[in-house]
């Protein structure tokens, strides 16, 4: 089959690789019909995620058609499914608590050691996201093996297009969990840093969860325009002092909840010799946490801080005293996707979310390398890219010019 592979920093190539096989009874194989590139993939692209190996198949946002099932899979051939990026067994302590991204079984014995060394505990498994999270092949490919296929995949009813539901795989539940973690009370003012796909779904979710007002912060005009379209007031951080503006918009007290949808690429990690170097590297790594720092300082006393943005290690100059003195509540984490799948699918069908207008480009899987380049270099124009294995090479379709509000 054809698959998008990571070959090194800023090196993505589409290769012919072996087809996946059923290995365990609960497995299924799906034929991918749509797969998106995520902000998290940029961290891989830039080489900041430790544990990537040249030749790894990437991609964790995907859906498709079931083509093969293991003896104890509950799926059937021909079903259309969206697959959560988190691989979760459904039966461990964490899965039973619906903390799916913390699944204690999905990261195999062989790969969990390094993960445990770095984080204190081994992270749960994920598709296409380095060997720290299990080393599973990703979904930017023609076919994917899905472990625990009786737990994760969401069966999609007829009549819903791929674009309507694809983001159930990650960014829609991620935005939803980000807003849920902000413990929004009716009428709250919620500030959202970052108007990438995650921020855009966070804005929609915060309003659905009762926020009176959402203030979104970014600097790309197209992304800010989308934020406005979804109901946020917007701040371009290149044009205003964000903290001053937020204070002045809230009578001086600051937003009730602040959500960091920026995340940071941690520096200082190399892919080689992780086992030997990880301890040293941990101590010398820094994160760029500008947005997070700003969020902590801007937040009202006794307010809430939600962090869906991804961080990898230790951070310098973290405003710990400010966090403590202001008495903020912090919630964070990789998304427990399976926990929200059902209700979010219902909400999509009820027309509560706009899942489509943030997609700027559809392209062939064959053009992945070029699309990664655009996603990295032209974030204003490229707000979300969906790759289709079915499209012919070069068949790129871009969104119509956005009507600026």
């Amino acid at each position: 089959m054809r698959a998008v592979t990571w070959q090194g920093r800023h090196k993505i190539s589409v290769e012919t690789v072996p087809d996946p096989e059923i290995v365990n009874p609960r497995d299924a194989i799906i034929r991918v019909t749509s797969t998106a590139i995520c902000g998290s993939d940029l961290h891989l692209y830039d080489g900041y995620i430790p544990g990537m190996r040249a030749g790894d198949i990437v991609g964790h946002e995907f859906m498709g058609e079931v083509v093969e099932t293991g003896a104890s899979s509950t799926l059937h051939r021909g079903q259309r499914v969206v697959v959560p990026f988190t691989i979760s067994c459904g039966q461990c302590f964490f899965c039973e608590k619906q903390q799916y991204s913390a699944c204690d079984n999905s990261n195999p014995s062989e790969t969990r050691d390094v993960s445990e060394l770095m984080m204190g505990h081994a992270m749960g498994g994920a598709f296409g996201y380095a060997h720290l999270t299990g080393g599973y092949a990703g979904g930017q490919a023609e076919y994917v093996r899905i472990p625990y296929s009786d737990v994760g995949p969401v069966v999609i009813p007829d009549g819903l297009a791929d674009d309507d539901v694809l983001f159930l795989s990650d960014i829609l539940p991620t935005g939803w969990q980000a807003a849920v973690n902000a413990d929004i009370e009716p009428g709250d003012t919620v500030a959202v840093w970052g108007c990438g796909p995650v921020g855009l779904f966070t804005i929609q979710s915060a309003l659905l969860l009762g926020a009176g007002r959402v203030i979104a912060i970014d600097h790309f005009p197209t992304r800010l325009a989308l934020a406005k379209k979804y109901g946020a007031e917007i701040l371009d951080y290149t044009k205003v002092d964000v903290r001053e503006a937020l204070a002045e918009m809230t009578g001086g007290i600051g937003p009730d909840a602040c959500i960091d949808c920026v995340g940071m690429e941690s520096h200082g990690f190399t892919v080689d010799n992780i086992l030997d170097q990880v301890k040293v590297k941990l101590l010398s790594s820094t994160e760029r946490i500008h947005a997070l720092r700003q969020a902590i300082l801007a937040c009202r006393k006794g307010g809430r801080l939600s962090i869906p943005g991804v961080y990898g290690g230790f951070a310098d100059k973290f405003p710990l005293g400010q966090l403590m003195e202001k008495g903020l509540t912090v919630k964070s984490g990789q998304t427990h996707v399976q926990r929200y799948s059902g209700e979010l699918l219902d909400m999509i069908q009820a027309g509560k979310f706009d899942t489509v207008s943030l997609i700027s480009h559809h392209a062939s899987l064959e053009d992945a390398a070029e699309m990664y380049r655009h996603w990295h270099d032209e974030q204003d124009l490229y707000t979300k890219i969906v790759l289709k294995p079915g499209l012919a090479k070069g068949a790129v379709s871009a969104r119509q010019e956005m009507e600026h509000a």
Partner: protein
Amino acid sequence: MSRSKNDLPDPLILAAAGAGIAVLATGAALWQRRRHRESRGQEETIATDAPHWTLDKTSSRALFGKSVLINRPRAELYAAWMPERFPEFMENVVAVDDLGDDVSQWTIKAPAGREVTLVNRITERVEDTSIYWQSTPASDIANSGEVRFTDAPAGRGTYVSLILAYDPPAGKVGRLAAKLLQREPEVQARRDLHRFKQLMETGEVTTNASPSARGAESPAEPHI
């Protein structure tokens, strides 16, 4: 079959007779620790409730111990911990043959395509609670161990603890065994324990087997 704690099990007496002094040493490490723990209270000045296998510095430990939470009832896990099933979750174990009288022979993968043989006797069983074993002189690697099953709080299932002591003998086989041990005695034990957890909780051993663009890898085999 349960023994009183002060009784030396047969293999130890055999070992003391000459063939495998090392067996005695490792057995003693475990047994002393147990006795030490049981008699604590009179002579111990610094109180601690830490498990006995965590007490010394990592570098000076004669024992290795590791615990995992398994979301299954204690009796079910105790029943599943049987030599016949070890090859299902112990990666380096090729086969376990029952030699009768609670003695089993383990064939273990070693570096360079070699194999190492362990001959272990179960010395004590406490129903639904613990299983102790001790190698016999015929074993290439002297080892002893305990697996312990304790109820986890709040209906979370069971804490399963694996405690091991080992000591390779000298000689050619000894060097091979040492190499094997050096490579990963504790890593292997930890991984095996996690595979046992996976098998008991999910019904299968987790694998990341999947394709890659690396020519040497098969999509049906796990990779690191």
